[in-house]
């Protein structure tokens, strides 16, 4: 019993064999829903009915015409600013921790804790902290900074920054770990060469460390930007998507599950996707970096 299968055919069989399962999964759970999503975005489907009335581009026009839908991107802005600060903090801490600091591993573990905590629990913790007589205001008043105490959730000018801070606190350790890993993978000889050339600490940072981190900064910024545009779990859990804290994604949820307009909600999901892609392309142009990491 000799199977005369050529090497080429064997290879093809193997490739198909290995690819079939991931491809089926990809098509079923990613491509098919995505295509359906696009199709729904042109209908006024109510999520239940068996009829899918075609409305053309009406949903897309509605998104840009209705300030209640598109205007909430202003709230996302605070998450974006928070994300930038988050990256600066993460990079700074990573630089510190890459040096020979005492109990370095201890610091690393402690700083990584916020990221390991249950995300929902984190939001609840902050919900209590932000209460009028919660921990934050109590501490501020106790140390004589009572003037800074605020109605963190109640004040419309403060709430989104307060929520963005939760996001910052929760996610900076992740950025930090990535930066740390990247810093440690920079070859030691580059630093030695710089040292021989008489470079100062700042020069080493500016001309050796940061250029080597460019690709990683790019990755982290991408995560930050898309995370900011898609901020969802914090306003959803903390305020139940109240109007003052609504983000584009919580509005999408509202449109779908409160107002039963799945067509419009699908269009919003597509618009969000397009915006994320656009913003990331712009960011790549600005930050530069030729490597195709992302």
């Amino acid at each position: 019993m000799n199977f005369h299968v050529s090497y080429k055919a064997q290879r093809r069989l193997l490739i198909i064999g290995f690819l079939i399962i991931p491809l089926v999964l990809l098509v079923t759970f990613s491509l098919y829903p995505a295509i359906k999503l696009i199709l729904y975005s042109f209908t006024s489907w109510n999520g239940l009915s068996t009829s899918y009335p075609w409305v053309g581009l009406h949903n897309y026009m509605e998104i840009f015409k209705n300030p209640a839908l598109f205007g909430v991107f202003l709230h996302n802005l605070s998450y974006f600013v928070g994300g930038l600060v988050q990256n600066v903090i993460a990079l700074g801490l990573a630089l510190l921790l890459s040096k020979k600091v005492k109990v370095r591993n201890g610091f690393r573990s402690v700083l990584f804790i916020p990221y390991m905590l249950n995300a929902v629990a984190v939001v609840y913790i902050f919900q209590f902290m932000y209460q009028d007589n919660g921990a934050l205001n109590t501490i501020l008043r106790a140390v004589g900074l009572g003037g800074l105490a605020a109605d963190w959730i109640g004040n419309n000018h403060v709430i989104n920054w307060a929520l963005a801070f939760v996001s910052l606190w929760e996610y900076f350790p992740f950025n930090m770990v990535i930066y740390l890993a990247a810093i440690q993978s920079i070859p030691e000889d580059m630093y030695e060469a710089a040292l021989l050339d008489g470079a100062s600490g700042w020069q080493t940072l500016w001309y050796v460390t940061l250029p080597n981190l460019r690709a990683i900064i790019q990755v982290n910024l991408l995560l930050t930007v898309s995370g900011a545009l898609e901020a969802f779990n914090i306003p959803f859990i903390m305020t139940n998507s109240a109007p003052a804290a609504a983000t584009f994604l919580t509005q999408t949820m509202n449109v779908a599950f409160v107002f039963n307009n799945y067509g419009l909600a699908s269009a919003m999901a597509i618009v969000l996707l397009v915006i994320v892609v656009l913003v990331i392309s712009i960011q790549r142009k600005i930050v530069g970096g030729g490597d195709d990491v992302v």
Partner: protein
Amino acid sequence: MKKWVAVVSITGVSALALAGCGTQSVSKPDTNANQTGAASQTAKTITVLTNRTDMQANGMLQKYSEEFAKTHPGITVKWQTFVDNSTVQAQMNGGTYPDVMLILPNITPNELPQFFVPLDNLGLDNKIYFKDFQSYNGHVYGIPTFGDVNGIVYNKTAFKKAGITSVPTTLNEFYADCAKLKKAGIIPIALNYTAKWPLANWTDTLPDVIAGNPNYLNTIVNNKAPFSSSAPMGQALNIVHTIVKNGWAEPDWKNTNWANSKTMEAQGKVAMMYLGQWAIPQIVSAGTSSSNVGFFPFPATNHGKPIAIMTPDWELAVNKHSKNIPAAEAFVKWMVLESGYPNYAGGLPPVKGMKSNVPQIQQLYSQAKVVQGVPSTTALTQLENNSQIDINGGGAVQTVLNAQDFATALQQFNQQWANAASLSGQ
């Protein structure tokens, strides 16, 4: 990681939630129905949908299954609990959903025949209230599990402490009592802004009460400016706005906790909440005696006896595609007539002549003209959805309370309403 969270939320959650449920409903082959008809002696299993996760946890549901099996041998009842309507909705769209269903609030009357069998022949017609609440073209599709009536649930000790001897019967008295309570260091009324759903009464019941007409909300589809301050809806929003403006709500009213509110009312730190009778047992179990909790109709106007509107809570329906329609129907009948669930839930029994075991209901009845509610028309639901004004879920109240200027917020609502009306008119 954030990226993956994000990517999952786009392609995964939205796409799955929005798109995954898009399969056409497959009608079951007729052979199934014939087979079950012939083999009626064999064991049958029906699945029943319920929102009472608490009753699954405490074993009550299992007890109901056992009780039902005693009188209906051969029928096994399995329960499916849910917390989020959208998961059930996805099942319905996919065509496979429990045999005994609850009618989701967003199903409009014209959609009922698509999903459920008519229940005209259960023989309940004259025995129950709200019999045609969920009906279309003269057929009944839903049987209420129990009825609700809304009013102010109050702590009697708190009232006494503030020197209030009798419950307010006019709006002015109500405001005066709020001021007295505040002076006594008690939070006059908890709104539960964060939970959102407790705000719904202010827009989906109070306007009817102000108008003295349980059908009032249905008529606003023909009103170009139902949110004007002179219209009942505008007046209702003005009442809740007045409460917040005068500091009669929770001091931290935008950051509230529902479970906490119940405890605070039980302890007398909060005096009132505008809810349904179902909240009374919950507040009692949060730490007070039943005799300390009272219930009175919302004194919505300054003249005459207020009306109190009885409305059905969740309604039971039978899946059109069920293989065991007779068994499911028998269960619906049993649940309404024999299970004792209405009283367990602290609701008004839907069966005429059956007594409620919530003593406070008598107090409310003695002070109000009790009328039966009217179901929302398809037109009203559609206009709400198109204008994106959340009258039924409390979102509209949140928007108004959150707005910088009350009058502008009402104007904005009127405009949204008029725009949506003109679109649907085309």
